[in-house]
């Protein structure tokens, strides 16, 4: 390999690094919208909006979150868990048909978006235990 090739590769690498401007990160996600929604959402056979919201709050408290915001009209709850790290999470609910509700949660671990399905599975497992209802995948 010639010296010129190595030097120009390093320069190109630096240019690419410099191209990652903060603006680029505003709407950036690693996963597709469909995949994200599918891992972050579950359907529950429930119609009582208030009971669902209150159970979500109780589940978040069981998981060590402090509630930051709650909005019954919009159906969103945001909270933060601090345990040497900061985990922020928003859970939203919306009706699906006459007899079901979709619960969606998205989390941010320190400065990263959580795009790993496992933490969401754990959250929905805890929520379905608290609701005495099964969490179903959105189809």
């Amino acid at each position, binding site marked *: 390999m010639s010296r010129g090739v190595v030097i120009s590769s390093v320069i190109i690498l630096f240019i690419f690094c410099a191209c990652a401007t903060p603006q680029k990160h505003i709407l950036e996600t690693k996963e597709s919208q469909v995949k994200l929604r599918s891992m972050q959402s579950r359907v529950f056979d429930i119609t009582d909006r208030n009971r669902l919201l209150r159970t979500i*709050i109780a589940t978040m408290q069981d998981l060590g979150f402090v509630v930051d915001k709650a909005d019954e009209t919009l159906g969103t709850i945001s909270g933060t868990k601090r345990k040497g*790290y900061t985990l922020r999470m928003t859970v939203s609910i919306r009706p699906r048909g006459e007899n079901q509700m979709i619960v969606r949660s998205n989390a941010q671990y320190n400065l990263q978006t959580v795009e790993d399905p496992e933490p969401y599975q754990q959250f929905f497992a805890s929520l379905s235990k608290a609701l005495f209802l099964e969490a179903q995948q959105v189809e």
Partner: protein
Amino acid sequence: MSLHKSLAICVPAFLGLCLISCQPRIPKDALALSPESLQDRHMQTRIFETTDEKMLLTASAQLLQDLGYTIDESEVPCGVIVASRDRDVTDAGQVLGSILVAVLTGAATPVDRNQKVLASCVTKPLDDERIAVRITFQHMVWNTNNQLTKCEQINDPEIYREFFSKLSKSVFLTAHEI
């Protein structure tokens, strides 16, 4: 350029890239119920024999104000009050220790300076006669270099006991319009 020289450039570059991609990941159990969660729930919850949820929330808000907290957020239909409090937590002992270290080593060590306590107080009707109140505290502490030194849930049962003993008093005072 010799193979040796190319390696000398490529290996550190590769290691550097590895380090960039090795950001810490979310702990496996961050959103799983911990074995202590039931115990924490007991410590953070008290049950009141009343049906007046609004009165309980008012008494809680009054108590938080008594304790010097400011209310950041509230949503009565969900039974939620969010409050916080900032305080100077400079400790004379810690400052003295830092001065001694500075004298001995010539290097200044930072000491804890401010603390932010966050509290969420949530009411939840259990049946037609009882309402549960659950309070959760977390705190963050920054040192004199503005670095975050603590960021965790407060797990001292005494603090929760004291809060609920004051809440019972606040419920009485609120009920009697004091």
